[in-house]
């Protein structure tokens, strides 16, 4: 039984259908990457899992239970946490407050605490009392990841964590992923940066216009296959 599964997941924005029957699986301890071009439906897919779109009960399963119709706060309490696209830190709060709000709905014992986050991203310790609006893009992303980890989630959903960041910062952030994985958290990454995604993922799904165009182990896929799945033939 997969830890997180979508079954024939569809999503609509009014009359526009963004996802067409998406079937995906994330096993416990696994890192899965969702790749695809802009507008392929990747972010919509994550929003649907977190309950922000409100869907059919049996379109999303977590730990053997249907969660597709639960409210976002209920889904978070089960142990699914998200790093949203564009970081979306709370602007009125300091770095520390942004981290502390991360476990508001779910406070369970586990590896992640504010101290553990500061060990993962030491720069945040220096900035802890600073307003989140004064941080660099990379520091904001670290805070957003830390905030999502504070609840000791079983599944961490990451939406475009490399977007808009300098390559050296992207490297720092991606270096944290294996350490997150080592704590037993399963990771679902949505990425446009195929190279980064392929390096860390156990498995990938490629989305194209709201459908899965390719799936497999990164090492078993050829450039040609990915090119076709990404851009269309």
């Amino acid at each position: 039984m997969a830890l997180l599964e979508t079954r024939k997941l569809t999503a609509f924005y009014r009359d526009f259908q963004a996802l067409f029957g998406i079937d995906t699986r994330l096993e416990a301890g696994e890192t899965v990457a969702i790749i695809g071009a802009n507008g392929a439906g990747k972010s919509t897919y994550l929003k649907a899992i977190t309950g922000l779109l409100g869907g059919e009960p049996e379109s999303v399963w977590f730990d053997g239970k249907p969660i597709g119709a639960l409210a976002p706060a209920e889904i978070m309490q089960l142990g699914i946490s998200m790093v949203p696209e564009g970081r979306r830190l709370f602007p009125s709060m300091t770095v520390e407050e942004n981290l502390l709000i991360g476990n508001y709905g779910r406070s369970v014992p586990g590896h992640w605490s504010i101290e553990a986050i500061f060990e993962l991203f030491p720069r945040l310790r220096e900035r802890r009392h600073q307003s989140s609006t004064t941080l660099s893009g990379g520091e904001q992303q670290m805070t957003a990841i830390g905030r999502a980890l504070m609840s000791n989630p079983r599944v961490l959903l990451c939406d475009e964590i490399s977007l808009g960041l300098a390559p050296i910062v992207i490297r720092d952030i991606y270096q944290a992923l294996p350490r997150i994985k080592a704590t037993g958290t399963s990771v679902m990454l949505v990425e446009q940066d195929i190279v980064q995604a392929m390096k860390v993922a156990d498995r990938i799904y490629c989305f194209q216009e709201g459908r899965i165009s390719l799936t497999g182990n990164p090492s078993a896929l050829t450039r040609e296959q990915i090119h076709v799945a990404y851009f269309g033939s």
Partner: protein
Amino acid sequence: MIGWIDTVIQGVLLGGLYALFAVGLSLIFGIMRLVNLAHGDLIVLAAFVILVISRALGLNIFVALVLAAPILFGIGYALQHFLLNRTLGRDILPPLLVTFGLSIIVQNGLLEAFSADSRRLDADALETASIALGGGLAVGVMPLMTLVSAVAVIFALNYLFYRLPLGRAFRATSDDPEIAQLMGVDNRRIFALAMGLAMVVTAIAALYLGTRATFDPSIGPARLLYAFEAVIIGGLGSLWGTLAGGVIIGLAQTIGAHINPEWQILAGHVAFLVVLVLRPRGLFPRAVD
């Protein structure tokens, strides 16, 4: 000269009352972007609740306030949970229309239950008690308690917002309701708690309203206006700003009245307009809106 100093002191103290009117409004707008047009009538409702409890049980009004606070919290929670949450969305018109309707319902409900007679909350000896400041100046104990209560309420709310997890959830919801949900914050429950809390503040405001002057079911809208002006002068989202706004209106009114008693109300509104022209976002706007 003594007359002017006294005017300024009285103005600052009156500002405490306006700040208390305004804090509930500011809280609700800050957290859920809801403009509650029934706020003034809810203050009057709270005054009647305190009156009924104090008369029925023969209690001092301060004890009656302690009993009224949880009842009003419940009314606020239920109001938000069953009615106002349904009006919140992208369109700003439904909450305005519904709270306007609520204002009419509360006014007429109070009129039906209590008639149009003027009432007062009786604070016994405190009403006439005063503290001499020397030089012929004195401050009333009740007006002083009003200002002290306003400051204490704002301290308590700031403590909640900046020190406690629930306060962080309030701020998170205010900053970004969508992302707050991803932190496990149930926005609708937060909104209901905020409205309950605002009603408790309203009850404190109502106690001082009812002891300072008489009240009847029709006076709510004017209190709403003062509250609005205080919030906007202070700048949306800042409770200390709201206190400053209340004090500015209070000062303008007492100074206006000192020059000519007919100018009291007008002077408050003029001060509001002047601030609006000079600082359209208020004196202490939030850095991030």
